[in-house]
């Protein structure tokens, strides 16, 4: 959104502009660029061999695979939920809709620690369900299922939050047209809705994934910190840090920071594509054809 042709009277004095830009850049530099730079400079401060040895350590590898496993379960579950919730909320009128949206947003305003606590109370040994689980030798607390459930909770709203405003803005007209042309509901979703929402959906997925892989508080409460068994990468970072293996902690942290940067890059590409699509569809006359012309398959496989 550039305003390169803005006339002078619409903007501030050059000095004001310069000072405001300097303040903003200094703020972003101190609070964002510097910490990010520090993570990588600390991580390689003991050389490449130390870096490799820390990553290849069995505890670190176990943490990495558990983190990948957790995201691989929690993300698809929340994608299905998010798509269902968005379909029900945007295509139908029903009572209590705004209440439902509030409930979906609830995990955003709950401390991750409180989320972990709720599952401890639900599945822990002092509850009826917990005693039953112990009797039948099902492990949830201090085990992988607990970590997955807690991660699902903290990432619960992301996909729905991304899709609801998008689908609301797009309306239901094309889906109605698809129904008239004889599609069933699933076909209408797959061939009409999905191509329209794919970038928003992808954005939701990468946000969910970033949070799922990086979640600390909720997972920390529920995992029991069993080394090599219930440690995710963020928990492994904490353990190394508390053992005063600062460089080791930063090595593992740098892996997560790379993930964060990858997330930002994908996000920027998505926004860039979206802006281009908007510009293109504005350039053409607004017709349903532009919507139908988009390729449909990519996201279906990605999710």
């Amino acid at each position, binding site marked *: 959104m550039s305003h390169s042709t803005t006339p002078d009277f619409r903007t501030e004095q050059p000095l004001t502009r310069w000072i405001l830009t300097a303040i903003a850049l200094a703020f972003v530099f101190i609070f964002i660029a510097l910490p990010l730079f520090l993570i990588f400079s600390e991580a390689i401060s003991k050389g490449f061999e130390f870096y490799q040895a820390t990553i290849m350590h069995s505890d670190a590898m176990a943490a990495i695979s558990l983190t990948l496993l957790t995201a691989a379960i929690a993300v698809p579950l929340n994608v299905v939920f998010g798509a269902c919730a968005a379909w029900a909320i945007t295509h139908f009128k029903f009572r209590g809709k705004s209440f439902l949206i509030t409930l979906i947003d609830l995990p955003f305003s709950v401390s991750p620690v409180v989320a972990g*606590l709720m599952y401890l109370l639900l599945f822990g040994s002092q509850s009826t369900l917990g005693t039953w689980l112990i009797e039948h030798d099902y492990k949830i607390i201090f085990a992988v299922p607990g970590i997955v459930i807690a991660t699902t909770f903290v990432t619960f709203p992301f996909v729905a939050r991304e899709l609801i405003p998008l689908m609301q803005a797009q309306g239901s007209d094309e889906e*109605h047209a698809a129904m008239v042309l004889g599609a069933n509901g699933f076909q209408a979703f797959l061939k009409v809705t999905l191509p329209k929402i794919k970038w928003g959906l992808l954005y939701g997925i990468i946000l969910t994934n970033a949070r799922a892989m990086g979640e600390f508080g909720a997972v920390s409460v529920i995992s029991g910190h069993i080394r090599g068994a219930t440690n995710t990468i963020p928990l492994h970072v904490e353990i190394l840090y508390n053992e005063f293996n600062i460089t080791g902690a930063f090595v593992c942290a740098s892996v997560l920071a790379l*993930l964060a940067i990858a997330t930002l*890059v994908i996000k920027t590409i998505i926004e860039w594509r979206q802006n281009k699509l908007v510009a293109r569809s504005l350039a053409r006359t607004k017709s349903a054809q532009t919507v139908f012309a988009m390729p449909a398959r990519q996201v279906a496989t990605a999710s």
Partner: protein
Amino acid sequence: MNILQKQYSVLPGFGLTFGLSLFWLCLIVLIPFAVLFGQAGQLGLNHFLEIVTSERVLHSLKITFGTSLAAVLVNLVFGLITAWVLVRYQFPGKKIVDAFIDLPFALPTAVAGIALTTLYAPNGLIGQVLQKFDIKVAFTPVGITVALIFISLPFIVRTVQPVLEDLEVELEDAATCLGASRWQIFANVIFPAITPALLTGAAMAFARAAGEYGSVIFIAGNIPLVSEITPLLITAKLEQFDYKGATAIAVTMLFISFLVLLLINLIQRWSNRRYGMN
């Protein structure tokens, strides 16, 4: 199926999608919540109050909500300036700066925590400079605020940015023609238009900051009655298997958070009515 007669039910799948959503919502969110409040209810009012009004809990609540408020206020000022600069001015590298605003969303909190601690520790890059002026950041409430500024920064920028982009420049032109200065235009034309977005961003930032755990525990030093935040106190209770204490504190925290969100919501409604925005 007749489209014209059943306008809102022509699309199928309501039962399936609504049912699945509700089922998942109950399983992941509502049942755990019910259990938490059920457990808190079993404590009894006296016991509950006894836990919650202990000195350590009260102090941690003060720290948690005080530092969150401070962080949100800092971000309201600097976040607004950042959003303004990103929307209105041109400078080299603007797209990269814009992309990196979202870093706190994407960077795991524990990673942010150790990075900020290393920066602000007395021997750290920024800590060294600040120590010359005898300012201590790491292991004090100021350090907590720094961490919370980091994690809540994108909330304000990202809610204000789109509103600033969509602002009608014609209104500013009209104000200019009527002889208003740039500052008057900002204060009387632009600021009222972005107030709802600022409040929304502030509410989300505050909710996130108050519950934050990962980035804070490293930089806070976690000294009881000095720099201990409430989420950390909950984990401390859990480590001693004091589930009742943890439950009571958690419920109190949720209650205060919702109260603050409700308050911001009311202010927002008031400002919407006053300035006639949708």
